């Protein structure tokens, strides 16, 4: 399932390997058959709907809620059975869990104090970390005197203070408002790149995952659906679930006919990939931006007539809801550039001819859930 890595992590050595991991709570299986390899210095996001087991997997890696089966190997060391204190990671929780009665400096230096470091060395390291997160003067303050975003950065500095080999982040941004979240995710990514620390971030915000991750682990119902670069996840989703979960997707359900062809109601679609048997129920996935409207002629593959039912202005593009007379039961959305809208006078009620290039389409067996 995991398609070859394409991003910068290539050629590096594997840092964390999770093999056959399983976690059960009583009779409920929260994770099963988790296999995952993370390269050194990679930034990986666990993405999935609520309750799919992201936090459970992260906490198993941290040793906080040990798995019920399987293995975890970090930097060549089998840590499967090690208590948290003997593993090598820093962690930031959604709540930050800053110690409220300790100053920012004491929080950041918390893990340094019992490492036989000299006081001046600790102070210097704390100052360095505070400067790194852009809060050089906040050392004497208490956490309650900081904004949410600042608290988040202090928690990050505390987790990084001991220079751990692995940084774990459980929805670190979800308690913040949208604007701060946007800024901070950039900062986290930048910091991670600078320090080169292998990082796993849990999120259920796909946009966040796409913007920061080298690779995304898409999870559903306690198992991994796909591990890939954001680009590949978006362009070549490995399953109907991934196709529907990441970005906007049109699902066209039909029946497999001749090789390279799918029957959609009265339409006959050409598709690039073809591993299904004749007569099998299948679904074609198409992104809204893959519709072409200029230079569509009779001989253009997968061309069909439609009426614009409604339009929605999204800035650079206009999203149109299309009514396809030959496929009345399948509402479809298509994005058209503002240029095309102006040039062609696209508006509600217009009848148009559009096409979906076969090489952009993904074909899956079955129908979406």
């Amino acid at each position, binding site marked *: 399932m995991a398609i070859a890595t394409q991003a910068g992590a290539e050629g590096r050595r594997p840092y964390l390997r999770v093999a056959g991991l399983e976690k059960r709570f009583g009779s409920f299986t929260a994770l099963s058959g988790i296999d995952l390899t993370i390269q050194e210095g990679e930034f990986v996001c666990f993405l999935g709907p609520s309750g799919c087991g992201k936090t459970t997997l992260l906490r198993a890696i941290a*040793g906080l809620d040990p798995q019920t089966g399987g293995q975890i*190997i970090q*930097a060549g*060391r*089998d840590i499967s059975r090690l208590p948290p204190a003997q593993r090598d990671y820093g962690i930031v*929780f959604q709540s930050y869990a800053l110690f409220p009665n300790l100053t920012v400096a004491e929080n950041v230096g918390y893990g340094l104090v019992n490492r036989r470091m000299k006081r001046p060395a600790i102070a210097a390291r704390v100052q360095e970390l505070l400067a790194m997160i852009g809060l050089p003067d906040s050392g004497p303050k208490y956490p309650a005197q900081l904004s949410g975003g600042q608290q988040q950065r202090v928690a990050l500095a505390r987790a990084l203070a001991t220079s751990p080999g692995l940084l774990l982040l459980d929805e670190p941004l979800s308690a913040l408002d949208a604007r701060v979240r946007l800024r901070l995710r950039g900062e986290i990514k930048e910091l991670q790149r600078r320090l080169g620390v292998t990082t796993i971030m849990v999120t259920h915000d796909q946009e966040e995952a796409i913007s920061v991750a080298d690779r995304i682990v898409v999870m559903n119902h306690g198992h991994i659906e796909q591990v890939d670069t954001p680009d590949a996840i978006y362009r070549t989703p490995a399953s109907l679930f991934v196709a529907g979960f990441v970005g906007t997707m049109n699902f066209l359900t039909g029946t497999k006919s001749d090789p390279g062809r799918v029957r959609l109601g009265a339409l006959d679609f050409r598709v690039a990939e073809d591993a299904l048997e004749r007569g099998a129920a299948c679904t074609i996935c198409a992104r809204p931006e893959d519709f072409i409207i200029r230079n569509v002629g009779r001989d253009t593959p997968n061309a069909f007539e439609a009426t614009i039912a409604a339009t929605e202005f999204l800035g650079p593009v206009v999203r149109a809801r299309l009514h396809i007379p030959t496929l009345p039961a399948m509402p479809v959305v298509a994005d058209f550039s503002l240029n095309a809208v102006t040039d062609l006078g696209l508006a509600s009620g217009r009848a148009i001819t559009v096409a979906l290039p076969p090489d952009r389409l993904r074909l899956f067996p079955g129908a979406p859930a």
Partner: protein
Amino acid sequence: MTVLAEGGRRPGIDRDAWVMRAGVAGIALALFLAILLPLWSILSKSFEDRSGAFVGLANYVRFFATPSLADSILNSLFVAGMTTLLVVPLAFVYAYALTRTCVPGKKLLAGIALVPILSPSMLPAIALVYLFGNQGMIRGLLLGETIYGPIGIVMGQVFYCFPHAVLILTTALSLADARLYEAAQSLGTNRRRVFFTVTLPSAKYGLASASFVVFTLVMTDFGIPVVIGGRFNVLATDVYKQVMGQQNFQMGAVVAVILVIPALASFVVDRLVQRRQVALLGARSVPLIPQPQAGRDRAMLAFCAAVGFVILGILGTAIFASLVKLWPYNLSLGFANYIFDDYDADGWRSYWNSLKMAAATAIIGTAVVFTGAYLVEKGKGAGRQVVHLMAMVPLAVPGLVLGLAYVFFFNAPGNPLGFLYGTMALLVICTIAHFYTVAHLTATTALKQLDPEFEAVSASLQVPFWRTFLKVTVPVCLPAIINIAIYLFVNAMTTVSAVIFIYTAQTKLASVAIVNMNDSGAIAAAAAMAVVVTATSATVKLAETLVSGVLLRRTQRWRAR
């Protein structure tokens, strides 16, 4: 896959987890020895004859067949029922005034309502003797009835139980959702109807809980009937008489087991009520802020002032009684009654014993309770639930029963813990056990408010959990810790029911001295000792308010934004 330990750390040994497990096991063992085993020994004693042979229900049959003993049950039920009927409505109105009206001086009124908690229960009884006794100041008000008996017991119990009921009902009434009232008002409901359709139903759990608590307090209190009961026997004094007077341990055990029944019922109701009450006030409720209403506020103030006057009047009577040279013949005032050596062989020593015992209970008890609650709340392993359950048991065990259980258990021949019998240490252990539940719940509530990930964070930073416990958990919970310590101290100072069975000549306590001096007719000295105890509790309580103000400002600076 090769197992490679890096950085010289030994893999596989989770030191933190083992220390926590050991801690949980230690607390579990302590509670088992200090609560469950003694209770078991009293239960089994009630099924044995004098020689220790099992006789089934024979003792119980004999108990119900003895008219005087069976009468005590009816007597106990009667005074408990009467007291409940009187206290709960009074406390409800008082609590209503404090929470739902705009009476002036709420802090002061709330403080006055709590005054009886600072006294041993003998104090109101002694004061009542001075007011309504054979030579009482206002005994005409009784229209010829005697104060020695049910009337005196009920009056004393009303005083003694009032603060407990007010506390419960204040909590119940402050959990009001303003939106319910706004809804009722917008529908044009009149005030009377609002009271009966919104206020009363929302307080019904509190009322149930207060009724059961008061009922149990009266059933199991020993100090008031022993002073003012006269020939009116109740269960609590029966236990004492059977055991101390007639050395009939088996019958004492039977009465004790019977005494547990109302306490157990009250405990179960209280637990149910607590669960309901939390659900009653959702996170989205809007707290009700009372609006001024001149007529009602004035009436409420008059009521509260009258109640406050009676409370302070009873306390004042006790103080007056302790200062008068020889009531009613020599009314000159002085401190002669405070020279306890003239009335009791132990003199002031029992007071110092009490002080020592209360201090040790507060210090050791707070440390044990808080650590135990921490391990239950943040630890791992199945033992935690066991500790939590055992911590709940003392709330359902009256002090008399616990004290007697300690006699049976620690005095039993062959018990390796027998060396504790007769020591101050045993008094401390017994008192901590007696008041364990409330202290445990206070600690648990405080700990639940901490971020659950503190331990995970310190583990990830390879800081042992006990360091975080000392550096973060304890300082953050300091207000609750002080609360627990004061609660244990005040109760240890005033309690009589459990310790009366296990004190010795060397470890006699002030509360026991009060009972003894009263028994021997030195009622003024008994009043004086009760006043000294009350003054001590009050001083500690006041010191708490002052010191914790300063201390908290110093140590809780981080709370400020």
